[in-house]
């Protein structure tokens, strides 16, 4: 049997808190505590929890921006945190990330075509940059000609499309989306969620989808991981958890996600 696209085994990450006393070791807090999950190609795992529950720390470890204190991230069976820097850089084209604030992650002084092609330059594919960034723009429902424009010429939803174009330009197998629709208006959010579903089915992407909004999670995910204080308190198929949440915390999230009529 071949290895899953992504497997996290017992991921744990601790951070040092500010020192309380000069002579004692600073106290630690465990941001992520023994989390395990797998994502297959074409599947979506949702991670839900409040701010500070460890969601984004998981994203950073999966993206190998940050190493776990214990546990492994296996991408196609290969431990990302055991790779040498050069090898990791070559692997990065296969897993990409979309952030919450597209305005903060696009260089305002560069044409968006340049920003979209940035991941290609990092792996030495700049020759193809212009053609592939135009192709990516089309895939996210924008015009190839938009490559010549600057970020301020776009609306918030369009900027998030650009951020997604940049993430798929290397033709990755895994996409990590950290609160990628949270800053968007409801109708724009629906468009971006549909786009992610389209791209996923078209490209067979595995998706790690992080959100604090259970309604959004319910509409896009297959599997769900509910986090509280760094621990997985509930994990399984999304339909099952949303229909019969076992934990009071999950129930309260469901209530807060706003079903009003």
């Amino acid at each position: 049997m071949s290895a899953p696209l992504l497997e996290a085994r017992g991921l744990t990450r601790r951070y040092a808190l500010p020192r309380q006393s000069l002579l004692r070791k600073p106290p630690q807090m465990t941001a992520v505590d023994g989390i395990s999950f797998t994502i297959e190609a074409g599947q979506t795992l949702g991670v839900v929890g409040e701010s500070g529950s460890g969601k984004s720390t998981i994203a950073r470890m999966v993206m190998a921006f940050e190493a776990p204190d214990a546990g492994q991230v296996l991408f196609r069976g290969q431990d990302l945190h055991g790779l040498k820097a050069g090898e990791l850089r070559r692997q990065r084209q296969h897993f990409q990330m979309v952030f919450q604030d597209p305005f903060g992650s696009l260089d305002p002084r560069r044409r968006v075509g340049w920003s979209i092609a940035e991941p290609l330059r990092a792996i030495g594919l700049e020759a193809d940059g212009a053609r592939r960034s135009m192709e990516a723009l089309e895939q996210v429902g924008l015009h190839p000609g938009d490559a010549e424009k600057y970020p301020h010429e776009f609306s918030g939803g369009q900027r998030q499309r650009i951020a997604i174009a940049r993430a798929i330009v290397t033709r990755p197998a895994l996409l990590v989306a950290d609160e990628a629709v949270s800053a968007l208006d409801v109708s724009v959010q629906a468009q971006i969620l549909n786009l992610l579903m389209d791209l996923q089915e078209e490209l067979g992407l595995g998706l790690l989808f992080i959100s604090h909004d259970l309604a959004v999670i319910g509409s896009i995910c297959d599997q769900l991981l509910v986090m509280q204080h760094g621990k997985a308190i509930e994990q399984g198929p999304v339909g099952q958890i949303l229909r019969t949440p076992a934990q009071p915390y999950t129930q309260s999230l469901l209530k807060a996600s706003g079903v009003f009529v």
Partner: protein
Amino acid sequence: MFDLQDFTVSFGGHAALRGASLRIDRGDRLGVVGESGSGKSMLALSLIGMVPEAAQLSGQLSIDGRDMSRASERDWQRLRARRVAIIFQEPMAALNPLRRVGETVMEPMLIHEGLSQRAAEAKALALFEEVGIPDPAARLRQFPHQLSGGQRQRVLIALALACDPGLLIADEPTTALDANVALRITDLLVRLAEEREMALVFISHDLAAVARATRDIVVMYGGDMVERGPTQEVLAGPAHPYTRGLLGARPDPLANMAGRGGGRRQRLPTIPGTVPLLRELPQGCRFAGRCPVEVPQCAARVPLATRLGPDRSAACHLLQAEESA
């Protein structure tokens, strides 16, 4: 108390708020919903006399029977805080990071009400208790960075209540908060409005929060008030195509479960296109060009509000045509 009549705010001939009319009385709880560019924040700024100077205004605003449309900044300063207060989305940005939160909350009492330092301290303490800040005496002496997001928002609510306003405007008060905290802040605002017989204008793109907090609702799009009425009625049976689109686009955590199981996942209903720029909005119905039930006259002619019930109306050419037929 507050009476806005045919109020328009324009920038270079383009209306960001067009012909808005609104009455707010003691104890009213009004929700204003709409997406970015709908004009809902411009409406809030109009009610507190903080419209940007570059804007051209027309129409009437009277507060307690007094015409404020041409009031000077000095008049407004006297009125603000005492009659109307506002809280914004980002509590960290609204608090001075270098001052203890207690001092910030006391400031308007010292300036507007002429309270002594001691009386202001006592009132700030009482307000912290009222808005549900635990260990209020200690919190008064803390700095904003020492508080959580929800507590900061409570501090801002206390600040807004400092001079016992008759109207509290909450502009996206829960957007930056976690879902559970947002729920508690929403409930707090409702409780305060009821206990103090204060009017509340709750501006949000979060329909669930508005449904929970308000009795009446105004739906805005492109600077127009497109639909209004009792909150539950409007949300249960939206009459305007934009309101229907907005409600339909909300992801429902459970709606998608039925068709799950290997097959193609259901897509969310969307409103096609994007909100046009201010200068590119159609002259007639602002929703023309995106509307699923558009007829030729929509883009050219401004639809009038059609009465749908004692307190209900919507501005759509189709409803107008139905009524006259």
